[in-house]
């Protein structure tokens, strides 16, 4: 199973859904329209590609791109041929919703809760979308880039010269 083969299968099946693709450090990375995420991952799981192991779900935040501000990154795997694929979907802050994978993978439950906890991404169809690692009444999603790690009111520290 090669990257070209899998990418071709995905583009053939969902010509409208694939936005872009790349291969950073050899891993096929496909950007998919966020409405079609569940469809594509379901296809990868049930088709003869057998990419049926959900390795990881995590979020990412790019404040400088308002249209594609919040991203979800899925890592999936075919254990038999040891093929890995990364799937990304981006959305704006106003429309921060994506389909949940809990019907496909039991393990998606906590991974999506963690992503919701840190980035505020609402997973449609998730049975129990509550913060998991932070306390439930925290009220914000701390991994977003606008929350600085240290107290923003401090003036005695100037990190700009260190490129941070």
């Amino acid at each position, binding site marked *: 199973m090669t990257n070209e083969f899998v990418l071709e299968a995905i583009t053939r099946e969902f010509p409208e859904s694939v936005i872009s693709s790349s291969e*950073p*450090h050899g*891993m096929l*990375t496909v950007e998919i329209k966020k409405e079609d995420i569940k469809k594509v991952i379901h296809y990868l799981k049930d088709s003869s590609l057998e990419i*049926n*192991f*959900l*390795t*990881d779900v*995590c979020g*990412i*935040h790019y404040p400088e791109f308002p249209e594609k501000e919040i991203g979800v*990154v899925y*890592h999936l795997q075919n*254990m038999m041929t*040891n093929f*890995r694929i*990364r799937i990304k979907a981006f959305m704006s802050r106003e429309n921060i919703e994506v389909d949940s994978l809990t*019907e496909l*993978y*039991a*393990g998606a*439950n*906590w*991974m999506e809760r*963690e992503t919701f906890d*840190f980035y505020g991404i609402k997973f449609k169809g998730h049975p129990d979308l509550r913060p*998991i*690692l*932070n*306390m439930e009444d925290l009220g914000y999603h*701390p*991994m977003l880039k606008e929350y600085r*790690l*240290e107290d923003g009111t401090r003036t005695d520290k100037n990190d700009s010269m*260190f*490129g*941070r």
Partner: protein
Amino acid sequence: MKDNSLSNILNQHNSSEQIDGQLYTLNLGPTHPATHGIFQNVLTMDGERILHAEQTVGYIHRAFEKISERRNYAQITTLTDRMNYCSAPINNIGWHMTVEKLIGVKVPKRVDYMRVILMELARIGDHLICNGVTGMDAGAITGLTYMFIERERIYDMYEQICGARMTTNMGRIGGFERDFTPKFHELLKDFLKTFPARFQEFCNLLERNRIFMDRTIGAGAISAERALSYGFTGPNLRATGVDYDIRVAEPYSSYEDFDFIIPVGTSGDTYDRFMVRQQEIWESLKIINQAYDNLPEGPFHADVPEFYLPEKADVYKKMEALIYHFKIVMGETDVPKGEVYHAVEGGNGELGFYLVSDGGRSPYRLHFRRPCFIYYQAYPEMITGSVISDAIVTMCSMNVIAGELDA
């Protein structure tokens, strides 16, 4: 999909073992001696039978992912060893390998072999504790106390490498800060000579022990299909019969050079998890023996001056070394743009690092794929319907490490 909600279970549940017909709620944890770490299980019980379980995690969440967005790459090593503190060197070395993959460094063969020796020692230490504790929670404390002596000897070896015992901060990006010391060679040789016989005693104590087998066979079983759906990896997945091990599937750090087998179980119950770990200890010993016998000569670190601290003597005398020393210590090394996912076989399964760099001095995004966090969510499914003593041994044999659970 099966409806596992509490109200549904209560509706279906009509006969009670209790005389008064009442269900009660039991808080197992957060600081229960049997949880071996801080996490909570709220159990709904009917007599001794568990009808419903719900976990609460996050008690020791330390926001490592957020902190690492402000730290330079060398400083993140100290965060990784606070995840699975039972096998900290695997986390450290896994992180170093992730960075090396991103910046495109090839480390010398000797570094690979040194890493393999240390990672396998860490795996032995991790499995010894897990299995010792499983025995202890089934009522056999002796095994754990003897295996703690062996773990101490492994920690003595860590001390020779990095000066620390538990949270090791071992190695550097590109290799090790120093070569194996003569004392380390002495300790390792002694360990390889005496450990097998002592470990065999532990095996004899529990593996065919009637009481232990009765307690663990059939307790907390999970099918291979459900385990894969839940994202199990590592010994817990192999106990269900799936022979997936990253050391073989995607060899890193020259694992392809060594001859070893991947033990698998059949039923995925507590006894199988225990036995898979027992066998893995023997296989780890085999790997260490092979790696130590064939340890190549050569440098113990790669030539990456931007990331690897120069010799202290050079810092005082040479301009270049001083510049690099300053840049590394102040965290001023720019890391090339890119994104990379690297996984190593940790003590509990696939320990993955998803690293996105925007060309700055600290990661733009770093996500840890922590095996514990992912497989612990299967716990309610594994214990519902069993008695509470089975729930305890199931939890131990899953080897849930609170630090890795919460990151």
